[in-house]
């Protein structure tokens, strides 16, 4: 070829404490200057953002209480410290847009219309929960409201949501799809195949990498030899963006840029939101693997709600009383939802046989249950016994 081979070099790794964005200790976080979209937010919308973040935290705290009372069946997953990335990104969608949450995106689901009652019932495995007790925690969805339930297998939602986006493109619907993955999930083959498929087909998809520093106990440096997950965009020929995941307005701006680019035919964007997981992978995780001081530093210096409250009350002149009123309304709502969820019945065993297929609608019960004996009735041997050959 004409020009001599060019060497492009991968990102250098800057020294940093595991899982903590470089320089995060160097300076205290500063808010990103308002962008095109956040500038246009009304007072009411800014308060709405606040309420979703507060609702997320309050509801999760309630779940912790229920978990301690062993009323939660299975594990409990927190998004403490990540409320801004979940809420701000989902807020960038329109009603007909669809997202697929991760385990730490309860906030995104709330924005999309999931109710505390649904979530409480899910965690308690109630028969009237959205999945009728079939799936755990926030693994549920509603196409009407615009969220698709995830499965546990990390990465799989990327190709699936790429397909949802493909259907929008094929039908020329001006709708956008948002799929969340964690820093850890970016290592899966499904993430790679799904994102590449989406990029090649230029479907309206935004993939958000929530970089919270850890995958269970695994710090970023054991997950990825590079520095920023947004650099992975180059592998798909798509734009890669990075934003402060604990600045809800920055999250909103960065996500909305990508969402509206997708809506206008601009294809796929990879958005990295840098945040921090302040609780363990799940409630049982004692976080013994976290370097000393790290948790405390984030709690003290970079809590997304504290930062937003500070900003609302100073920059946007919101009166503390307004926020207090919102908090009270949310607390009451969560109380009411808890009482109702606790009253909900557990599912009935036989419901487990319903709806595996559209046809047949119900699977047969095992013969040794409820006097079903068909499959093994004592056989009456026909006349032809012994003689070989048939009737």
């Amino acid at each position, binding site marked *: 070829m004409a020009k001599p081979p060019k060497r492009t070099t991968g990102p250098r790794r800057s020294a940093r404490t595991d899982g903590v964005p470089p320089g995060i200790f160097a300076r205290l976080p500063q808010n990103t200057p308002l962008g095109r979209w956040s500038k246009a937010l009304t007072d009411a919308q800014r308060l709405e953002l606040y309420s979703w973040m507060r609702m997320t935290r309050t509801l999760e705290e309630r779940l912790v209480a229920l978990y301690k009372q062993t009323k939660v069946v299975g594990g409990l997953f927190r998004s403490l410290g990540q409320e801004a990335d979940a809420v701000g990104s989902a807020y960038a969608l329109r009603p007909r847009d669809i997202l697929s949450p991760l385990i730490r995106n309860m906030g995104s689901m709330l924005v999309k219309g999931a109710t505390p009652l649904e979530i409480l019932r899910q965690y308690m495995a109630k028969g009237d929960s959205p*999945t009728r007790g*079939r*799936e755990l925690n926030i*693994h*549920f*969805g509603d*196409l009407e409201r615009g969220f*698709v*339930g995830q*499965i*546990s*297998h990390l990465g*799989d939602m*990327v*190709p*699936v*949501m*790429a*397909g*949802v*986006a*493909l*259907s*929008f493109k*094929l039908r020329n619907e001006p709708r956008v799809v948002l799929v969340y993955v964690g820093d850890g999930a970016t290592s899966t*083959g*499904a993430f790679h*195949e*799904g994102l*590449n*498929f*989406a990029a*090649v*087909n230029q479907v309206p998809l935004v993939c958000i990498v929530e970089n919270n520093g850890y995958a269970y106990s695994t710090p970023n440096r054991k997950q990825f030899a590079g520095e920023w997950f947004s650099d992975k965009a180059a592998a798909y020929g798509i734009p890669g963006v990075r934003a402060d995941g604990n600045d809800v307005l920055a999250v909103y701006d960065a996500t909305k840029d990508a969402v509206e680019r997708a809506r206008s035919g601009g294809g796929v964007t990879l958005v990295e939101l840098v945040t921090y997981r302040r609780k363990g992978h799940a409630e049982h995780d004692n976080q013994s693997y976290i370097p000393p001081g790290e948790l405390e530093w984030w709690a003290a210096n970079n809590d997304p709600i504290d930062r937003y409250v500070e900003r609302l009350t100073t920059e946007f002149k919101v009166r503390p009383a307004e926020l207090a009123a919102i908090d009270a309304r949310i607390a009451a709502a969560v109380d009411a939802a808890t009482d109702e969820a606790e009253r909900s019945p557990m599912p009935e065993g036989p419901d487990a046989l319903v*709806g*595996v*297929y*559209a*046809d*047949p609608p119900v*699977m047969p019960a095992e013969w040794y249950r409820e006097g079903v004996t068909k*499959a*093994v009735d004592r*056989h*009456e*041997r*026909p006349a*032809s*016994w*012994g003689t*070989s*050959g*048939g*009737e």
Partner: protein
Amino acid sequence: MASEITYLEAIREALDEEMQRDPNVFLMGEDIGAYGGAFKVTDGLLAKYGESRVIDTPISEAGFVGAAAGAAHMGMRPVCELQFIDFISCAYDILTNYVATARYRAFLPCPMVVRGPSGGYVRGGPFHSQNPEAAFLHTPGLKIVYPSTAEDAKGLMKAAIRDDDCVLFFEHKYLYRRVKGVMPAGDHVVPIGKARIARAGTDVSIITYAATVYKALEAAEQLAAEGVSVEVLDLRSLLPLDDEAIQATVKKTHRVLLLHEDTRTGGIAGELSARINETCFAWLDAPVLRVAAADVPLPYAPPLEDYVLPQTADVVKAVKHLIAW
């Protein structure tokens, strides 16, 4: 006046008719567009339906099978081609965990078809001859069909595309151009879950599917000459199985040979044997026997492949053993 077409053409005809009938039906796969697919199953469909309905994908089985599920949730009816069914293993996670459970755990419809050239007898070696059906048999939520005739290939493909759940559609590449049939007139749909009596008989039942149906029929022919009347049941659908038809033939002949191309251990014949035992025990005059591939990866050299795969002579010998019982 309808003329004979091949098993392969029958599949193409079904795809074509369904794409014509329903604008939500579209195809995805590697090299299925301009090239028409490794075996030319989709030949001509790009020209007819355009790039938005015949989509060439990157080499990403999990990627496009997963994307099919997402599109299916939204009302599309994707048909995915795996260039060889052997590569379905790369989509195993998505199919068994995401697709198969979507309706049950999330009430998400997932009407899609995953199809591809399967099976051996073609010197394809260990990675171009597989029969993966048994690996999906314990996955509630999936359906599995594996036709042996051109008529069934067409009729089952149409049923699969119209089914509201995911259907794995195995096509036997040995049969692609070797078997032909005249398609029934009109909207020819073969219901999923119904077996077919390929040959009626009274002394022994051979229950099989796909390419080995022809081994069974050849054996039946030879045995007829010796006065043994063999009934051959072609399952066509493997999930769900046609228990009625299976029980009927067992209760008719009292002697059963299970025949398939997959390995003996872990092949579908195990499930069949268990069901027959549970429901027809007293009707059995002899043990239910299996003729299947040896428990080895399928080798490539003709003498090796011929040795590993079930042959007509094996079937004849096994049937005689049952008769002598």
